[in-house]
């Protein structure tokens, strides 16, 4: 009966209750969509970092990372990568934990065109391996990938770099590098492709040639590499594989993508902080709105509440009735807000939100311009609990106020 009275009391002033319920629904939907946006924002960035730049794990000789000299390389990289693919398998299914590996050579140097020159980071890649690890097919905007052109000594550079060097497809550029023996070497390459990555900073320095060409130029053994990038089938196996490799190869640096891109952890922690602040602000606004409405409802029923106490309804029951009313008022909007979020996520979770209007700023920081919203389902019940807590907190003052009424004063109020 108490719940029935509370329910009917909520609907005594239909418009006022609907305003609060709508406010709660909008608040819940806004909160969930903001969470989905943040998660999608960071998720899209992490996804870009993994699939377009770093992969899950990278292995370098520690000396190479320190001095960046070609002489510090991983020998027999082919044999190693084959061994790792065969070794790291899922204990239950026996499936390989590693999806793809790319062994790369690296060198820093200058790229020169007839009209300009730039400092570059040259990556020598095995075309098939590299394409399996990094989504170059999505980033290659003009021209073709290695192996799809008959041209000798092909090179792929960014569109931005091409603009800076004032060159086009099929034009020649020259790379000036330092070999493993410390001598300045150079080679001419023909541009077969132009790429555009998610990061404009990367586009300013990275160029790709085939590993065999780079190793020949640097006077390295054919199977030497400075960097091995590993893409995992199951990201959950990351720590296990990293630990195992660290034990086996103490002279090499084994770094996961979070160590290679520390800003990811910063984003994670900042996102949590921002969400905490946002949830707090929305809760506070809703608490005030609900308290205001419930206080009005309680004060309007001064005489009625006094009468209830007069005829024998004790304070605990009065308190309970007001708490029930507030809970109904505070939580009725939550399922509506969740439904709105669910419907919005059908679009935003698949097609995402196009932020190309801000593409310059986003690409400068390595972000994609389309954010695919992502919402962990656990947020639905977390927000539901938060709303219940909000309503409960909002109930306390009006309920306390109600039980402070003196029946004799309430009844005789004219």
């Amino acid at each position, binding site marked *: *009966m108490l719940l029935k009275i509370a329910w009917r009391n909520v609907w*005594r002033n239909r418009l006022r209750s609907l305003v609060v319920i709508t406010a709660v629904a909008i608040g819940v939907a806004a909160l969930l969509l903001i969470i989905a946006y943040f998660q999608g924002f960071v998720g899209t960035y992490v996804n870009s970092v993994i699939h377009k730049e770093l992969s899950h794990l990278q292995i370098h000789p520690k000396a190479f990372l320190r001095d960046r000299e070609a002489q510090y390389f991983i020998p027999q990289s082919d044999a190693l990568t084959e061994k790792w693919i065969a070794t790291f398998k899922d204990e239950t299914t026996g499936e390989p934990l590693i999806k793809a590996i790319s062994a790369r050579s690296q060198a820093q140097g200058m790229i020169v065109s007839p009209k300009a020159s730039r400092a570059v980071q040259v990556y020598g890649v095995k075309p098939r391996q590299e394409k399996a690890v990094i989504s170059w097919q999505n980033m290659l905007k003009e021209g073709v990938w290695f192996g799809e052109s008959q041209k000798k000594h092909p090179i792929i550079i960014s569109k931005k770099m091409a603009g800076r060097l004032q060159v086009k497809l099929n034009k020649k550029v020259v790379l000036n590098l330092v070999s493993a023996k410390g001598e300045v070497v150079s080679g001419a390459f023909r541009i077969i492709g132009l790429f555009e990555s998610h990061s404009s900073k990367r586009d300013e320095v990275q160029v790709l040639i085939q590993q065999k060409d780079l190793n020949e130029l640097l006077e390295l053994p054919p199977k030497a590499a400075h960097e091995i990038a590993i893409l995992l089938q199951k990201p959950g196996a990351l720590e296990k594989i990293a630990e195992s490799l660290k034990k086996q190869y103490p002279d090499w640096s084994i770094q996961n993508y979070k160590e290679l891109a520390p800003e990811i952890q910063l984003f994670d922690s900042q996102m949590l902080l921002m969400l905490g602040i946002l949830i707090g602000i929305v809760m506070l606004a809703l608490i005030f709105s609900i308290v205001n409405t419930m206080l009005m409802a309680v004060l309007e029923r001064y005489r009625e509440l006094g009468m209830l106490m007069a*005829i024998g309804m004790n304070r605990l029951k009065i308190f309970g009735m007001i708490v029930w009313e507030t809970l109904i008022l505070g939580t009725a909007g939550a399922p509506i807000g969740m439904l709105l979020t669910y419907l919005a996520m059908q679009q935003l979770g698949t097609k995402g939100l196009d932020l190309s209007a801000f593409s310059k700023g986003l690409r400068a920081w390595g972000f994609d311009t389309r954010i695919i919203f992502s919402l962990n389902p656990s947020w639905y019940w977390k927000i539901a609990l938060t709303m219940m807590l909000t309503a409960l907190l909002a109930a306390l003052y009006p309920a306390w106020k109600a039980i402070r009424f003196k029946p004799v004063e309430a009844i005789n109020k004219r």
Partner: protein
Amino acid sequence: MSLIETRQLTKTYNPETVPVHALRGVDLCIEKGEFTAIVGPSGSGKTTLLNIIGGLDKPSSGQVLINQTDIAQLSENQLIDFRRDHIGFVFQAYNLIPVLTARENVSFIMLLQKRPAAERKARAMELLEAVGIAEKADVRPIYLSGGQQQRVAVARALASRPDFVLADEPTANLDSVATKRLLDIMARLNEEEGMTFIFSTHDQRVIDRARRIIRLEDGKITQDETP
């Protein structure tokens, strides 16, 4: 042994600023089965006396014994339970719960007493029939006339099987027909079931039906007669 007994009852409002002496030593005994009207001009202390007898207010001094229980000594929470189980209230402004139907209003107090659902339902209907409003059992107060609402209030007052019913100006908002009908019902319940009714009233129609009239003036009983 009296049903209600007050001994040297006083009530002073604002004792430390501008004292207003609402009751000045009221001694009163009311027996079971009485049909009593407390009358007097405005400000004479009628409502104060009724509030104190009903456990809604505490006296400044003196005793209020109801079935030998001094209710002035009970705590607030004990008083709420005492009122629920021993006293029926009929208010001038009816004060029904607007979101409940007539039957639910009558049942409500029995729910507070934790009576079984079947008993609640049966007694509520029985009482609504007794006050002649059974056909409106499932109607909310807003759709009832003043007289009908007051009859539901009487049914509610009786639902808890109280020792007596206190009615504060019960006919003040009713027309002659509704007043007559309400008084007929109360008089019948008094005569047939022995229910004790105590009214505070200005209404001559109520005074004419009362079997005992207590007149208050300036907080004192100036007349106590049985016509």
